[in-house]
């Protein structure tokens, strides 16, 4: 049968199909044959970047009849290693989720009851403007009275450009302090950067707490699991649970939650006492090593001492320490992410970095490497200065509160009304603090105090249900995002391109910021003129128009250009037109890509030749060394060089003393231990009848963002509480029994999973489930949310949320 349709009718049909696609994807196969031949905007393959988690893997979207049919891996991107995980492939169901936010909504009921009316974008902007003008007028142009938060993503910066640089609020929060702040800073302050574990070449890896089989990270996951089990890398997994990562380990060591620091200190004790460390490397590259050595010996951190705390037999600790140093420098104590398990987490990360460094495994092939980053042009913004904008409210909550604040401390201050000035409004972009910040009841209390809550999201999350105005963002497949350069051993630039036009009335965040800035610029300028004495005096000499435009008060200025135009400028200014064309065509660009990108077979690709990989990139201390070093690393003689010798060269690290820092004097001044120290008083013991609650990630779900995805829900409908099988037996809890778990801040109900795969006195369930938003048809009340019961406590250095120190009771319902 031949079906002829006019271009116009085809177009109409496709639009109808797109809308239909929102509700039943698999049923659409109407005139498929007729259109398979049609080329053009409705039939294409678009390279883009995934946003189902934080990794940003390269994907190719297959579009037929204007509908995204399939997401395939894009082999050009070295970081994602030619793969898409379950979530990446299921991205189509984020796009065609029937529960998506489709148009702006304005609240008509009480906050939290979920009653909204459909609004136009202009109505939504006008509503926000009216509230903002009132608040800022009453708060005398203190821009920080509006807080804002954002989840991780390529659009985060665009949002920040508006909220921080242009609007001028200092109260920003992102995922850092509920994620990896302590690890990133612990490593950065010790070895100069967080670095990348070179799992393609490491010979010995201690993975403690990290779970790369279930918390997928590129390229770590891909590199590691092709080399385990006698294929090059020995993997030691230290975890209270027997995870899918532990399954691949040569040795799984069960550890009591919160005792990792004792384990690392004991390892350090063994290698220092036994003089097993790389002495030349330490001599050349450590600062204050003698202090650390003395500290460890004086602390008497023996394996026998650690055994009592961690539950790990002392011979095991000795063996791990010895084996690690035998494999060093190609030995890594893996950094991990989503850390902050206990109060001492910053010290733990420091101790881990120092332990890896003792073997010489920092900035060396097979160790922790720093990689290179390909330059991109800049998109500059003229940021105005507001005389009345106050400093962040949580600035004294911890020793070092950075620009991303301390989520829990900030929330506590606002909820308890203990801020230096009123925080009356909150903008939330792509984050779901109701489920992602410990102690949900308190987060709710915080939102209930606000005069204005604006949520920008793709889904009606639990947080969106507390908003006054909900602005619908389009999904990642419907927008171009800021181009990004990915640092690493094999660096590349990659681009998220729009695959199809935004559905419904949704918009990309840059368009939303443009709309907000156009609505707010002039009314807010009037308030600044009224209260800002600096602006008033400037205006006297230079006139209003000049101050408004030249001093950055015109909020619309960074959003004049489209994202495509900005990206083009950023790439072309550094790499030329050809690079831009290649990036758009392939989705990826790096210098000499066309020459060095090779397909080896259907499973394997080569992105960089061996000798072009950026294993060692830091400056060496002496010019002579650098040359010798380069020769050492030439491919031809690679096999004849002892890596320990390579590691021994003097380097320059990005730390204050240009060396690996054992002693942090600046931290000592802030009341933080200058060297990793175990403090018994900080350790939360488990009293009889109680359990310690721990949480974690899952390979089929990303935090709370994918819980409504029908494809992923097939793989796991809800989360289960892991409990040690012997303890469960005593409590007469069987698989699937409903149990009630109670902490000092909340109670949840969840089904039980008694298993030998978790140590005693510990309860675990996966983060992200337990949504109570009625807008989430498929996710509604599946399992339980961890943050309902995790207490809102912070560690003292960065104010990061402590995730694994909550004591709970469990009873069968």
């Amino acid at each position, binding site marked *: 049968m031949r079906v002829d349709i006019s271009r116009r009718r085809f177009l109409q049909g496709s639009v109808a199909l797109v809308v239909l696609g929102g509700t039943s994807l698999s*049923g659409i*196969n109407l005139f498929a044959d007729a259109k398979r031949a049609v080329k053009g905007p409705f039939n294409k393959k678009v390279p883009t970047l995934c946003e189902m988690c934080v990794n940003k893997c390269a994907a190719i979207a297959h579009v037929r009849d204007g509908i995204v049919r399939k997401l395939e891996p894009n082999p050009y991107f070295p970081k994602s290693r030619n*793969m898409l995980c379950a979530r990446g*492939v299921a991205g189509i169901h984020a796009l065609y989720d029937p529960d998506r936010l489709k148009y702006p909504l304005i609240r008509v009921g009480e906050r939290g009851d979920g009653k909204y009316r459909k609004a136009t974008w202009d109505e939504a902007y006008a509503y926000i403007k009216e509230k903002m003008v009132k608040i800022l007028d009453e708060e005398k142009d203190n821009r920080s009275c509006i807080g804002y938060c954002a989840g991780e993503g390529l659009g985060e910066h665009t949002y920040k450009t508006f909220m921080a640089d242009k609007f001028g609020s200092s109260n920003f929060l992102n995922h850092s302090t509920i994620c990896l702040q302590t690890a990133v800073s612990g490593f950065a302050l010790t070895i100069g950067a967080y670095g990348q574990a070179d799992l393609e070449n490491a010979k010995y890896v201690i993975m403690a707490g990290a779970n790369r089989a279930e918390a997928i990270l590129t390229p770590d996951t891909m590199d590691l699991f092709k080399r385990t089990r006698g294929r090059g890398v020995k993997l030691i997994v230290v975890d209270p649970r027997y995870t899918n990562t532990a*399954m691949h380990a040569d040795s799984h060591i069960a550890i009591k939650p919160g005792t990792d620091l004792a384990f690392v200190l004991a390892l350090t004790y063994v290698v220092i006492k036994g003089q097993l460390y790389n002495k030349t490397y330490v001599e050349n590259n450590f600062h204050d090593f003698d202090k650390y050595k003395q500290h460890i010996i004086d602390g008497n951190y023996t394996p026998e001492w650690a055994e009592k705390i961690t539950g790990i037999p002392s011979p095991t600790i000795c063996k791990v320490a010895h084996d690690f140093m035998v494999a060093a420098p190609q030995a890594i104590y893996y950094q991990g992410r989503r850390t902050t398990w206990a109060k001492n987490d910053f010290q733990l990360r420091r101790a881990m970095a120092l332990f890896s460094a003792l073997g010489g495994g920092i900035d060396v092939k097979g160790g922790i490497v720093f990689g290179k980053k390909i330059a991109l042009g800049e998109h500059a913004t003229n940021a105005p200065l507001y005389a009345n904008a106050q400093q962040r409210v949580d600035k004294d909550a911890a020793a070092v509160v950075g620009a991303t604040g301390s989520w829990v401390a900030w929330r506590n201050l606002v909820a308890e009304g203990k801020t230096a000035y009123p925080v009356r409004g909150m903008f939330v972009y792509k984050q779901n603090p109701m489920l992602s910040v410990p102690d949900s009841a308190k987060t709710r209390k915080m939102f209930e105090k606000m005069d204005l809550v604006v949520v920008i999201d793709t889904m009606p999350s639990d947080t969106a249900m507390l908003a006054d105005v909900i602005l619908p963002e389009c999904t990642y497949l419907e927008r171009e995002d800021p181009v990004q350069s990915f640092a690493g051993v094999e660096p590349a630039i990659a681009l998220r391109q729009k695959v199809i036009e935004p559905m419904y009335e949704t918009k990309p965040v840059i368009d939303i910021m443009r709309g907000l800035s156009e609505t707010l610029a002039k009314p807010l300028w009037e308030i600044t003129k009224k209260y800002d004495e600096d602006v008033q005096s400037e205006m006297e000499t230079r006139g209003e128009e000049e101050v408004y435009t030249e001093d950055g008060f015109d909020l619309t200025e960074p959003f004049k250009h489209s994202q495509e135009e900005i990206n083009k400028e950023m790439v072309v200014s550094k790499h030329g037109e050809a690079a831009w064309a290649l990036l758009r065509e392939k989705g990826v660009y790096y210098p000499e890509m066309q020459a060095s990108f090779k397909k080896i077979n*259907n*499973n394997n690709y080569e992105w960089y030749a061996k000798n072009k990989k950026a294993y060692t990139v830091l400056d060496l201390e002496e010019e002579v060394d650098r040359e010798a070093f380069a020769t050492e690393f030439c491919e031809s003689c690679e096999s004849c060089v002892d890596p320990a010798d390579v590691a021994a060269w003097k380097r320059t690290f990005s730390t204050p003393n240009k060396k690996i820092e054992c002693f942090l004097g600046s931290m000592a001044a802030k009341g933080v231990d200058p060297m990793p120290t175990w403090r018994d008083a900080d350790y939360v013991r488990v009293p009889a009848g109680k359990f310690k609650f721990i949480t974690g990630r899952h390979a089929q779900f990303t935090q709370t963002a994918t819980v409504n995805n029908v494809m992923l829900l097939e*793989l796991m409908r809800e989360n289960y509480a892991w409990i040690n099988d012997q303890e469960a037996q005593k409590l007469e809890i069987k698989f699937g029994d409903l149990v009630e778990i109670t902490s000092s801040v909340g109670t949840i109900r969840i089904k039980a999973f008694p298993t*030998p795969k978790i140590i005693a006195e510990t309860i675990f369930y996966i983060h992200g489930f337990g949504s109570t938003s009625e807008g989430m048809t498929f996710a509604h009340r599946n399992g339980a949310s961890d943050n309902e019961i995790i207490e809102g406590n912070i560690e003292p250095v960065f104010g990061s949320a402590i995730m694994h120190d909550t004591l709970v009771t469990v009873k069968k319902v």
Partner: protein
Amino acid sequence: MNYAMALDYQNCINCKACEVACKEENGVQLGAEKQRIWVGMVEGTIFGKPFANIYPSQCNHCLDAPCVSVCPTKASHYVLGGIVKVNAKQCILCKGCLEACPYDARFIDDTKVAVDKCTFCDHRFAETGTTACQATCPTKVRTFGDLDEENSDLVVLLKTRRFFFQKESIGTLPKLFYLLPEDEAYAKQSVAHSTNIYTWKDIKPLYDQARNKRSKEWRR
């Protein structure tokens, strides 16, 4: 042409990317029980310590497929390369093939009102060289290819490794080649004592013979 697949199952991290890719690629009916491919898991304890083995799996496209022999309407049939498929229009849902399949690789697709199963993605491998499950896999467990082509990724791989089959003793000559782990301890943990281990030399004549016997049934 004799299509088959090797599985380096020790790479598998049970992320289920393959299951999802299969469903998206082939429009498989939603529902946890509706799977063309799956990741099987065996877990327990040894001397009180937990262990787990993962075996990704799917239809074995057996050279002597009982599901084809048992089908009363010839809905179950071979296509070129020995791929076992189901013609939904001819299927009368007698479920004989569901019983006959040793691997439980078939299920009923309620939208097609027919039995459904893995097709080795025969609609796409001419263009891409891979099945959807292989292409998407983070740790590259699978290698699809042609046993009759000396230079295929598959044969190149099978020549360098030893392998075994699941439920080989039933005698259906399955074509999922499970690659024996080089690590002896892990091999012992994940392969039964009684399992036969083969090399390419052992298996090639056997499989050629079987192909010759039944390939007359293979049709376009």
